[in-house]
């Protein structure tokens, strides 16, 4: 099953700011290069871009959850 991994350790956010809608929601189709969330590392924010394409997106990491580098953020069917 293809998966989207966190490139960095830090805190995962699913939207650009608390008052913005999430970049992607479960069930979405994802293209290579699509932004699916942000990782906050030491107070700086980095976009997480998908390196795989697919359908049936399913997030396995919650918003504001701490992650290690390489952790699976979401899976595609």
């Amino acid at each position: 099953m293809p998966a989207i991994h966190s490139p960095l350790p830090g805190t995962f956010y699913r939207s650009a700011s608390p008052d913005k809608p999430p970049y992607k929601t479960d069930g979405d189709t994802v293209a290579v290069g699509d932004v699916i969330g942000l990782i906050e590392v030491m107070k700086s924010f980095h976009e997480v871009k998908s390196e795989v394409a697919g359908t049936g997106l399913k997030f396995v990491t919650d918003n504001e959850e701490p992650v290690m580098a390489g952790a699976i953020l979401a899976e595609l069917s």
Partner: protein
Amino acid sequence: MLNKLLVANRGEIAVRIIRAARDLGIATVAVYSDADATALHVQLADEAVNIGPPAAKKSYLNIPAILKAAADTGCDSIHPGYGFLAENAGFSDAVTAAGLIFVGPSGDAIRLMGDKVAARSAAHAAGVPIVPGSLGRVDGIDAARHILIDTGFPVMIKAAAGGGGRGIRIANSLPEFEQAFPQAEAEALAAFGDGGLYMEKVITKARHIEVQILADGADAIHCFERECSLQRRRQKVWEEAPSRALTPRLRDELCSSAVRLARAVNYSGAGTVEYLYDEDADRFYFIEMNTRIQVEHPVTEMITGIDLVAEMLCIAGGEPLRIRQSDVTVKGHAIEVRLNAEDPARDFAPFPGTVDSLRIPGGPGVRFDSMLYPGYTVPPFYDSLLAKLIVHAETREAAITRMARALSELQIDGLKTTKPLFQALAADATVQAGDFHTRWLEGWLETHASRLTPSLEP
């Protein structure tokens, strides 16, 4: 005297506060998040309490969890450090309301100095020079034209309801101003529902100079100035004391003005009054007062021999100031650099990771304030400060030479740090001449950043 102190912080400042408390025979309680269970401050404190998950707002910013930890361990006092809750007036109030001592000023003093307009008015009332401009809202364009006599050009027009850089316009001439003012008024009304405007002189080239204050609520003294003009994105990276830009007369005026402000607001604890110094015009202006211990406090400690954190603890314990103004003297020159977990060759990208091996500089005039140890993993959830390297020598020139020597001894394997930046700065002719202002470093980085790779270790 305090009996048992909870340190509501992490990293190097938590370690620094625990050390000062232990030197005074005060028992210490560390608090930590799930990400900091192995942190040095947890190891060094007498006791440690887990206060929640890694995210700061669920742990180090969680006031109920911190107050509960203090109650459960029988603490009589809380030191907030810097950052996190240090300048949160509600936290100071909550600590006091819980029957504990807050090591810092009252909530009211924090609130006053945290409100930019109120702080500016308080400074003005205490006879502290402020950046020329309106004292409050500008009452129409006629009043605005009158204020131009004081500010000159360029002048900043700022929406009273704006913030974070929004609603700001700069006018470089009278025609520009005549056009910009009504536009700014209409924009502010549309964007914020409030057409109120402030005006302030734009100081394009200035040094950042700040005065260290100690006060006990009745009396206040200064511990001279620090210069922090080397900044990147408004973050100080290299701080020193004394400032080479000040004449004895100006130093006296600057430091006296800071004492006047601290007295005027019945300040208690350690604080810093920050100024811009316009060297060409030979004038200084109040910017703000920070109501906490600052990151760069060690440079003041090195030139005066005063332990500022210990003095904070004594003042909080109810003692009057132990030091008289006439006892505070300056000896030599001190410089501090901030070693951050960032890669200066890659636009200072954050670089959390594990410290493989560590060689800490030492010898005469060298101090290393840090939470690092071999095998420590720097978590990605907090700011990137790893260590402060502070040197002291008889002269500024000798201090820079000593800084270069200490940096060459320092070895942090496993992480990228800002050490190459400071090696390059210590070798730079402009830095050696002390001929810089707050915008200098960013310009220098544009041409030098790509070359900031680690040099070979001796």
